[in-house]
């Protein structure tokens, strides 16, 4: 019986590693190939490079518009996430505390956007008429709007769990709505707002469809478009494509490692509560 149990345990551990390898191997192939010579990378194999060639990364950085697009991505992700945190904190607070019919309706109206698809063709018209096509401000506002539904959903549930007695005590002590919000509620919301920030940062960083429709000048491109275009030009040189993929993934993986707790927390909240 004990032998059988040990065998099962070993089997499960082996299985877990095999499945993790299924995820790791594609990345390993790409990372290894990013250091290979052009000729050696012609065939994609899981072998160490004969000689590590760091030059690839330099070429990619110079020819792939990576510097400029990195800053575009960083600007769009950071600015829209900050703005999002700001508007969502305010709306989650008022909509969840104010029990009127109007606020209930507004809440549902806003979170409806979680599932509804965005129609990019008329969106272009709207952005054009606002003078926001091919502009940083336009992209930042668009990303903020796109992030509102799911972020509000996460934050709303969180605010509902903050006891209302706190508000009453603060009002007794002479706070008004704004003071109550800034001094009492916001500090309690910090962790959920960090979650909203991190999740939105990642999703904007990874966004491909919106820039594909909205941005048609190279200077405005985020990393996703720059990489896609690079692949179009250099698809025969897998060492360069691989280096490009590695460089683009690094910032996201770093954010993931730092914000892991918040990412997983945010993605699972709402799914398992209740």
């Amino acid at each position, binding site marked *: 019986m004990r032998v059988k149990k040990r065998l099962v*345990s070993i089997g499960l*551990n082996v*299985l*877990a*590693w095999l*499945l993790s390898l*299924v995820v*790791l191997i594609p990345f390993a192939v790409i990372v290894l190939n990013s250091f290979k010579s052009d000729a050696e990378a*012609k*065939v994609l194999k*899981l072998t160490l490079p004969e000689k590590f060639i760091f030059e690839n990364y330099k070429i990619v950085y110079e020819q792939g518009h990576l510097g400029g697009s990195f800053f575009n991505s960083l600007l769009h992700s950071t600015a829209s996430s900050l703005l999002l945190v700001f*508007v969502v904190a*305010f*709306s989650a*607070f008022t909509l969840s*505390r*104010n029990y*009127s019919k109007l*606020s209930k309706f*507004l809440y549902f109206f806003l*979170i*409806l956007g979680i*599932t*509804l*698809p*965005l*129609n*990019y063709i*008329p969106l272009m*018209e*709207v952005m054009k008429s*606002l003078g926001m096509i091919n502009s940083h401000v336009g992209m930042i506002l668009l990303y903020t*709007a796109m992030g509102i539904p799911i972020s*509000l*959903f996460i934050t*709303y549930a969180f605010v509902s769990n903050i006891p209302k007695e706190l*508000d009453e005590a603060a*009002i007794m002590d002479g706070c*008004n*709505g704004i003071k109550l919000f800034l001094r009492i509620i916001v500090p309690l919301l910090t962790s959920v707002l960090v979650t909203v920030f991190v999740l939105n940062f990642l999703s904007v*960083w*990874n966004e*491909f*469809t919106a820039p594909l429709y909205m941005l048609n000048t190279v200077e405005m491109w985020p990393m996703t478009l720059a990489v896609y275009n690079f*692949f179009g030009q250099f698809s025969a040189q897998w060492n360069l*494509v*691989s280096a490009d*993929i590695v460089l683009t*993934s690094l910032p*996201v*993986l770093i954010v*993931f490692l730092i914000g892991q707790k918040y990412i*997983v927390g945010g*993605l*699972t909240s*709402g*799914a*398992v*509560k*209740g």
Partner: protein
Amino acid sequence: MNVNKIYPWYFSSGAIVLYLLFIVAPALLGIYYSFTDWNSYSSEKNFIGLEHFRTILAGDPTYLLFIKNTVLFTLITSIAKTVLGLFLALLLVSGVKAANLHRMIIFSPQVLSFLIVGLVFKSLLDPNNGFVNVTLRSLGLDVLAQNWLGSLTWAMPSIMAVDTWKGMGYIMVLFIAGLLAIPRDYYEAASIDGAGFWQKLFRITIPMLMPTITIATVLNITYGLRVFDAVYVLTNGGPGNATDVINTAVYSSFAKGYWGLGSALSTILFVIMAIISFFIIRLMNRKVEY
């Protein structure tokens, strides 16, 4: 206490304005454009009623193929992600070593853009020198080597497999959270009564996980119906139109300048999603009120 004074609804106005401008206005405008012949070749937008919808639903059979592909993609990836996600979650809570490390590894593709994942697999699945075929050939399994993304038979299954590979980690994380919330006593009581692994799985685990399964299904379906990046990056709808889904068809009609028609395709997707959303919001509402 006057709630409207302490919690004035206009605190929400920032969110509401942005949402109306960038999400709601395009949605409504798009429905209007669906009934016009708006295109890049003339400056006028003439009202043509339901003509686009007739073309899509009864005229040109390729459009029905796009809808069929979208539904098939959604159905198969949803089932695959749910089954694999549950399997992975069960494995990782069963006491394997380094469970957190495994969880992180398997979840990691989820944080990458589909663009990156798509390009990785475009390289790996290359018919001549890609990793998959090279490995198969070196194992003497030449028969199994395929033109993964370029053949009519394999292109769609390949996209579905890559999408599942990327998305299963998220579903797994949901299931891990769900599994950890099930009280241990149930299993202890069942063990005393002599229940085996499968009995516990089907009598306790799966029934207790129903809320998580529901949410996972909802997420998978809404993601699947809206899929764009995965198909666009891996095959761009090819070979021919074999892997086109609604959103890639919208993009190509946009690129060709058929804006009215593209809007009509979007509107069809919008209607399908709106019906599903109605049920989803009701589900989520139940979750929010503890």
